[in-house]
């Protein structure tokens, strides 16, 4: 059992169980942090190994299955995301977690997600998928039953869809490990190309693809399966949400990649291409595009800080899906890059939210304002995060988004191009709303003695913010690793520069010139006369003298006009649709139960007679 891959996967689990069993304040935090640090350390160490050999492999046999684990370039990247953001989130939890319950399930979910990334067979993949789902569900259940059930039901619905798909593949291929499945399906595609009968029929391929799409779509929060995400992300420990949104949703993204890895050739053969993208991928991309728009617009309309970022998460995942869906080497790399950057900035955001909630106890915009003065460190972090998410060069958010834009538009995908453009604008919109309502403007008096972030949270945020900046200025660091996936130079350039041939981006250059511009502006500024600081009430109020009693900041319904513009579309709610279905099933069950088990033994005897009749009819 002692293998580095096993340690990577199971260290958090063990730590979680230990922390839960010991349940001593101080010690459980220490164990938890160590448990999250071990995988990270081993993953960093594995980087060395991977530079000398293509992969690290391990397998165990259990309960009649042979579980394969494989660490290679793609999942190393994803595992690193999990490692880094997971570690940061766990650090954050040192401040925000209230009891050992949270430690247990947060760490189990980290194990789950690491397992999903490292598994190299469908059985293991499914198992860890379930572990991850369950643990994260338990994190939500503690806070809100309804939200958690919605999350769990949709997730498990997805997981079961995946199970059926796995079963169909298993029935035909007879194996569960990725290598065999990939090979068999590849050969099947070849067979089809030569006109002989294929192993899988067209309908089966549609079914398998559809089921996988549902499975991974749910986890990734893809429209229209996203409805769980806003509630689940917001109704839990926000430090944990950093991991939840930053890492767990990436499992869905990774799953989409698994579709490519396993079924790509076969699906491509069956359905052909749409432009440069495979048709099946285009479906993913289109849904991804819709996800961007829906998530973004709804994010702008939220009144709760947690919900805003939850929807924002959905929206950002949409980008990744678009990239994956387009399916060229470049777009996939861009998508993975965006996955990295999303994890970094969204992890950071949720840690910021955690800090705010931890310090103020408030979650709604209407109760906040003017916190920038009171929490300067947190605000600085927020500033980095905002710039990164909004896609402002030279931060990592821009680098990945830029790659994605180029990759998509270069493949002549106008509709998708329009969608992602819209998405980046909407990102601006909701971020400013967050900035305005939380950090600026008039501060409610009950927030006057708010303190800045506690040390563990500050460290956690610092790590993520630093990475946001570093990977933005030196995007080549990430690109270099991404290129290893395909074994060729898909993204050219140096450590600071991304060069695609039809477009280039140099992070360092932009930084330098931004500094130059700022210096010029600063010179002009400092040439002017001295400034005098005035309070927020001392502003232009069209002649009305105001005091702190007046609420000067628009905190509620900030984007009311947008809401009015979208009134028609907002009436359509998939959330409500699912709830209606759920309620309908419950009512049906109720009626049916009272009808079938109606209490009369004679009715029951009739059931027996009917079965007898069926048997008789079958026999005669």
């Amino acid at each position, binding site marked *: 059992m002692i293998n580095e891959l096993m340690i990577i996967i199971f260290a958090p689990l063990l730590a979680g169980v230990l922390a839960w069993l010991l349940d001593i304040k101080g010690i459980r935090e220490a164990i938890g942090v160590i448990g999250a640090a071990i995988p990270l350390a081993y993953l960093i160490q594995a980087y060395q190994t991977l530079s000398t050999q293509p992969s690290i492999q391990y397998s165990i046999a259990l309960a009649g299955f042979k579980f394969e684990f494989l660490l290679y370039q793609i999942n190393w990247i994803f595992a690193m995301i999990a490692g880094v953001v997971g570690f940061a989130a766990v650090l954050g939890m040192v401040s925000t977690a209230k009891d050992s319950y949270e430690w247990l399930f947060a760490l189990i979910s980290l194990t789950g997600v690491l397992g999903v990334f490292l598994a190299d067979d469908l059985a293991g993949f499914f198992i860890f998928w379930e572990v991850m789902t369950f643990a994260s569900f338990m994190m939500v259940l503690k806070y809100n039953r309804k939200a958690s059930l919605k999350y769990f039901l949709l997730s498990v619905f997805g997981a079961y869809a995946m199970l059926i798909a796995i079963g169909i593949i298993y029935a035909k291929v007879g194996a569960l490990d990725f290598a065999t499945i990939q090979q068999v399906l590849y050969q099947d595609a070849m067979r089809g190309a030569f006109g002989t009968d294929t192993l899988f029929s067209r309908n089966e391929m549609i079914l398998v693809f559809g089921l996988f799409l549902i499975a991974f779509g749910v986890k990734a929060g893809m429209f229209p399966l996203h409805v769980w995400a806003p509630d689940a992300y917001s109704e839990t420990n926000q430090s944990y949400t950093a991991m939840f949104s930053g890492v767990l949703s990436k499992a869905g993204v990774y799953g989409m990649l698994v579709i490519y890895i396993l079924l790509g050739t076969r699906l491509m053969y069956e359905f052909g291409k749409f432009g440069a993208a495979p048709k099946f991928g285009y479906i993913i991309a289109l849904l991804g595009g819709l996800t961007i728009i829906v998530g973004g617009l709804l994010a702008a309309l939220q009144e709760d800080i947690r919900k805003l970022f939850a929807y924002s998460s959905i929206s950002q995942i949409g980008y990744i899906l678009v990239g994956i869906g387009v399916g060229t080497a470049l777009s996939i790399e861009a998508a993975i890059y965006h996955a990295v950057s999303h994890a970094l900035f969204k992890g950071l955001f949720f840690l910021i939210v955690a800090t705010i909630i931890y310090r103020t106890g408030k979650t709604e915009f209407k109760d906040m304002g003017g916190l920038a003065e009171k929490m300067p460190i947190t605000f600085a972090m927020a500033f980095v995060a905002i710039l990164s998410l909004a896609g402002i060069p030279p931060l990592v958010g821009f680098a990945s988004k830029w790659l994605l834009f180029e990759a998509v538009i270069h493949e002549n995908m106008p509709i998708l191009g329009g969608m992602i453009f819209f998405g980046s604008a909407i990102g601006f919109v909701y971020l400013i709303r967050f900035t305005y309502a939380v950090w600026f403007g008039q501060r409610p008096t009950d927030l006057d003695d708010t303190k800045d972030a506690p040390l563990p949270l500050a460290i956690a945020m610092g790590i993520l913010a630093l990475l946001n900046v570093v990977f933005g200025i030196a995007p080549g660091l990430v690109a270099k690793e991404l290129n290893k996936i395909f074994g060729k130079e898909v993204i050219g350039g140096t450590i600071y520069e991304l060069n695609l041939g039809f477009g280039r981006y140099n992070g360092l250059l932009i930084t330098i010139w931004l500094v130059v511009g700022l210096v010029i502006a600063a010179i002009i500024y400092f040439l002017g006369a001295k400034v005098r600081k005035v309070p927020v009430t001392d502003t232009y109020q069209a002649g009305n003298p105001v005091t702190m009693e007046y609420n000067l900041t628009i905190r509620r319904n900030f984007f009311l006009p947008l809401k009015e513009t979208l009134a028609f579309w907002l009436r359509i709610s998939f959330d409500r649709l699912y709830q209606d279905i759920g309620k309908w099933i419950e009512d049906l069950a109720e009626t049916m*139960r*009272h009808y079938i*088990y*109606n*209490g*009369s*033994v*004679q009715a029951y*005897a*009739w059931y027996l*007679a009917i079965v007898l009749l069926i048997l008789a009819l079958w026999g005669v």
Partner: protein
Amino acid sequence: MISAYYFGAISLILIGLYAILTKRNLLKILVGLSIMETGVNLLLISVGYVSGRTAPILTEGATPQTAVDPIPQALVLTAIVIGVATTALALTVAINLYEKYKTLDIEKIRGLRG
């Protein structure tokens, strides 16, 4: 053409079933159950019968070649006892039910449902 014994046995079983399916009085249902059991026993016995042979008691005059199959008879003995046991218990339950519900109409004894 089916033999009269089989016919009788099947008829008894089905009459019992009919009673269970249509009668509302618990005791009648139990009677139906008993009729069914009787029918089954009759069926068992008739299966073991061999034309022209006697009871399998091997005293003078009876040889293994002139005796009918002893097994069904042994089985029926067991089955009868089991039937008795079931009936006894069922009647006991009926007593208890009557005490609690003051009725034997099974349409009215529907406390547990859904």
